[in-house]
């Protein structure tokens, strides 16, 4: 119910017509830096399987760019779940190599690494004598059926024409499905990294609505000729918990801020290893 928090903001903003702000000096005790892990594996696009390693910095450190961690040993191993045990395919353990250690350090990649639905993956990192590890799985794919749009004409005002996108999918009868839905607006295709699909990014699960054919309409009013690249992913529960906490962490602030902590899925560092079963669809909003 982030809605309520937002409403609370609006109410406060309404009241605070006299509010002002000024700069203030804040001194906080320094804290040891930690390694941040951003790792993905999916069944659809091997180019979007990668590991990024960076560092946390003290808040007032003026360095604001990605602080990549160079020279780490990064491996991903596929496994098959047999009951409670996992059989790891050690022979096919794959090392990810640093893509551009000099220009953009910290990005590890292996084009031969592919993900499969229903498999388990183990991530192992060694950096400066530190061992960081985590596992994830690519859940069974819940396919996205289609994306449609609707143009609503305002009879009074030609300018306020609404263009709304709706996604359609069959939510499976079994409970415990978690989703991450992302989209990017624009016709170009040369983007890289899940972070480049930033126009919409939402996580949800089937706790409230389970086992029905779902239609979800976005509140955003698109423009004519927008090209929307839509990525609909199934993720496991630890990944859902991480992305849900991430969503809270990035929208945190103001008088109602709470100290949000990321629910990491890796041990020895901060961040997540996310397995995704992805459906990708494209939509162009056309003038009728």
């Amino acid at each position, binding site marked *: 119910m982030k809605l309520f928090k937002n409403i609370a903001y609006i109410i406060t903003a309404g009241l605070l017509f006299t509010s002002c702000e000024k700069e203030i000096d804040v001194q906080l005790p320094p804290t040891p830096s930690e390694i941040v892990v951003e790792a993905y594996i999916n069944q659809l696009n091997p180019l979007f399987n990668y590991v990024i390693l960076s560092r946390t910095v003290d808040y007032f450190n*003026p360095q604001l760019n990605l602080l990549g961690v160079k020279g780490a040993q990064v491996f991903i191993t596929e496994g098959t779940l047999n009951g409670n045990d996992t059989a790891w395919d050690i022979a096919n353990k794959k090392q990810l190599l640093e893509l551009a250690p000099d220009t953009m350090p910290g990005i590890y990649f292996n084009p031969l690494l592919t993900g499969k639905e229903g498999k388990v993956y183990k991530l192992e990192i060694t950096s400066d004598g530190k061992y960081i590890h985590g596992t994830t799985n690519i859940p069974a794919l819940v396919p996205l059926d289609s994306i449609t749009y609707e143009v609503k004409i305002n009879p009074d005002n030609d300018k306020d024409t609404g263009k709304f996108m709706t996604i359609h999918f069959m939510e499976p009868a079994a409970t415990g499905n978690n989703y991450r839905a992302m989209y990017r607006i624009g016709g170009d295709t040369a983007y890289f990294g899940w972070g480049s699909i930033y126009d919409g990014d939402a996580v949800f699960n089937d706790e409230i609505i389970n086992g029905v054919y779902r239609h979800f309409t976005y509140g955003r009013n698109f423009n004519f000729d927008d090209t929307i690249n839509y990525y609909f992913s199934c993720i496991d529960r630890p990944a859902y918990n991480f992305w849900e906490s991430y969503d809270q962490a990035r929208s945190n602030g103001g008088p109602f801020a709470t100290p949000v902590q990321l629910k990491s899925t890796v041990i020895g560092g901060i961040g997540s290893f996310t397995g995704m079963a992805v459906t990708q669809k494209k939509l162009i909003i056309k003038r009728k």
Partner: protein
Amino acid sequence: MQTAHKKLFISLFLVIISAAGAYAQKQLTLSGKITDDQSGETLVGATVLCMGTDTLGTTTDINGYYKLSVFAGKYNLKVSYVGYKTLTTQIEITANASRNFKLEAEALNVGEVEVQAEASDKNVKSIEMSTVSLSGKTIKQLPVIFGETDVLKTITLLPGIKSGGEGNTGFYVRGGGPDQNLVLLDEAVVYNASHLLGFFSVFNGDAVENVEVIKGGMPANYGGRLSSIVNVGMKEGDVYKTRVTGGIGLISSRLQVEGPIQKEKSSFVVSARRTYGDVLARPFLADSIKGNSLYFYDLNAKLTFNLGPKDRLYFIGYMGRDAFRFVNNRVNKFTFSVNWGNKIAGVRWNHTYNSKLTSNLSVIYNDYDLKSTAEFLSGSLNVYSGLRDVTTKLDYFYAPNKKVKVKYGAQYIYHTFIPGILSAQQSGVSINQTINRQFAHEGAGYVSVDYEATPRIYINAGLRYSLFNQIGPYKQPLFDELGAPTGEYVEYKKGESIKLWHGAEPRFSFRYSIDASTSVKGSYTRTLQYLHLATSSSATLPTDLWVPSSRLVKPQIADQVAVGLFKNFKKDEYETSIEAYYKPMQNQIEFKPGAQLFFNQNLENEMVFGKGLSYGVELLLKKTRGKTTGWIGYTWSKTTRTFDVFNYGNPYYYRYDRRHDISVVVTHQINKKWNANFVFVYGSGNVLTLPQQRMTYNFGISPQSPLPYFNIVDRYVDIANFRMPAYHRADVSFNYTPKPDNKKFQSSWNFSVYNLYSRANPYFIYFDPDVATQTVRARMVYLFPIIPSVTWNFKF
């Protein structure tokens, strides 16, 4: 409206019965009622002193009655009450007697603020410690922001009671949280005491007769919260004539009508208030948000019936509501409305059996709820949450002789918790989801004995025994360790006990008089609290939920020891006190970082449990009489919490830990027409949890952008790692009564200036990392600079 009582109406009352001489050592009872001579309003807490060979004293109860056990003989009787002329009379008592007194309002010092609704030496003579009170009159004279008066803001000017700051009516008593205060409106519990997210309290100053705050040494007849009892007494209607009182202010207006139903026997009073700040602000708002509205209103009503000399019946009602509506009229048509508030209805029957025994029986219904509706393009969403209580309370007061007073009674509450009901429609799919209701019985019985062992030594010993029983029907869903529902439930049948908590709450206090104007007091109190407020932010949100003790959630426990030295000077013109307290607390509750509180079926899993400790010293110097009155309060205190999951289990400073807290309140009567008030407050800054580190996450690159994409995410390491700058502020106000002698229609003006020197007091702090300029800055948001306001009040 103090000018109402300005005329000399009824002269002093002299009862002289010639001495018969015969004077046996027999216990007799002198009792009666103290009322305002003009309105017939009962005066609660008025002092009756009986000065003879022994000096005895008492104060009137909540219905304005007093009772004294005396030996036959001659006495000088002194009846006094704040803002009224002290009445002195001689009385000879030969048999049980009933004497009613009418007090006349202070005529010459109209508008003079008395800082206490107490006997002039109650400070020293009573056994109560850690107790402070304010009259409605004082509260009305000390406006807070925008010229509004505010009960809960004004009590924070007293030592040991700390304000949460602007935008927060929450108050913090001796290191306790905002949910650890029992706020009572004429004995009815008020669950959410704030309007507009904490900018105003729910109490309309017009409807308030007096407020009493008990910070420690709680009598056994009160319980259910750890830290304090705030008793807000609603005003009774005038039994002689119909009166209308009102006020027009910058952001709200008030109207109150009172009068007799049957002359001298029964009365009514109805007070209403509504804000219109949103209406006034609308012309200045951008078109896109013009459709929004935000206001609150509240309504207080009280009916009083005197059914004869032995029975009185009271009906009370309260209803307050905040409403907010947000409309986006563009084609995606989004309308959101939310409204929330309290409803209280109660009836109280006061019965006198004989001169030694009286009783009070109350039945109260109260309800807090939040309703919201969102309508958007493809559907709608409705959410409801709330809490309902039905309370029955029976209290007896028994005074067998002049040395012993006994209070005993019992209380029972049936709680219904409605954490959330959601129904939604979207693209033809309807969703109905309910967080299961919870039910509980809460009960308590108590006995409290006051015993005046010698004129110097006075003791009180009490025992309260309370219990809390969470019962079915309840269907508790089970969750796995990752927070996902397992699909399994534990189901309890209707009335089936889920968990029973119970415990003894011993109370003890003493007073030792060193001399007539000096005493030492001490107390020990244990309190248990079975209800907990689920809140994670520093502001009061209407979505904050009360949750019951359950199998996982233990009741909170506090033990408090307090000692104090009380001394008055210059015939009680100056009162001083110093009190020290030590208060450990168990089973304190916090929420995990980032906990989702609203609409969470697994809320208990978000809670963590720990300990708390608070100790401090409170100093108070008051001047109670004369043209200039007021007080200076200073508190030194330290409050910590210790939770295994935070800061490696080390103690950390509580959010409202405040090393120094100072308040200065001065009222000066310039002449008959003008009076001036000055307030200064200083408090060490609140403790905040700020992120210590940041990181970049969710990386991406695209040919369109020269820089990679990523988000900057804050990383919290320790909690309570920063203290905000100190809060301080001075306010002044002037009350101007153009024609103080006009009795038919009185009007007065209140001119006030809030934050006189425009101090930028911190509301919150945020960090602003800017990738484009490669800078990281911290910014502090502050709310109110200097704000002048004017309010016009009238009465006829």
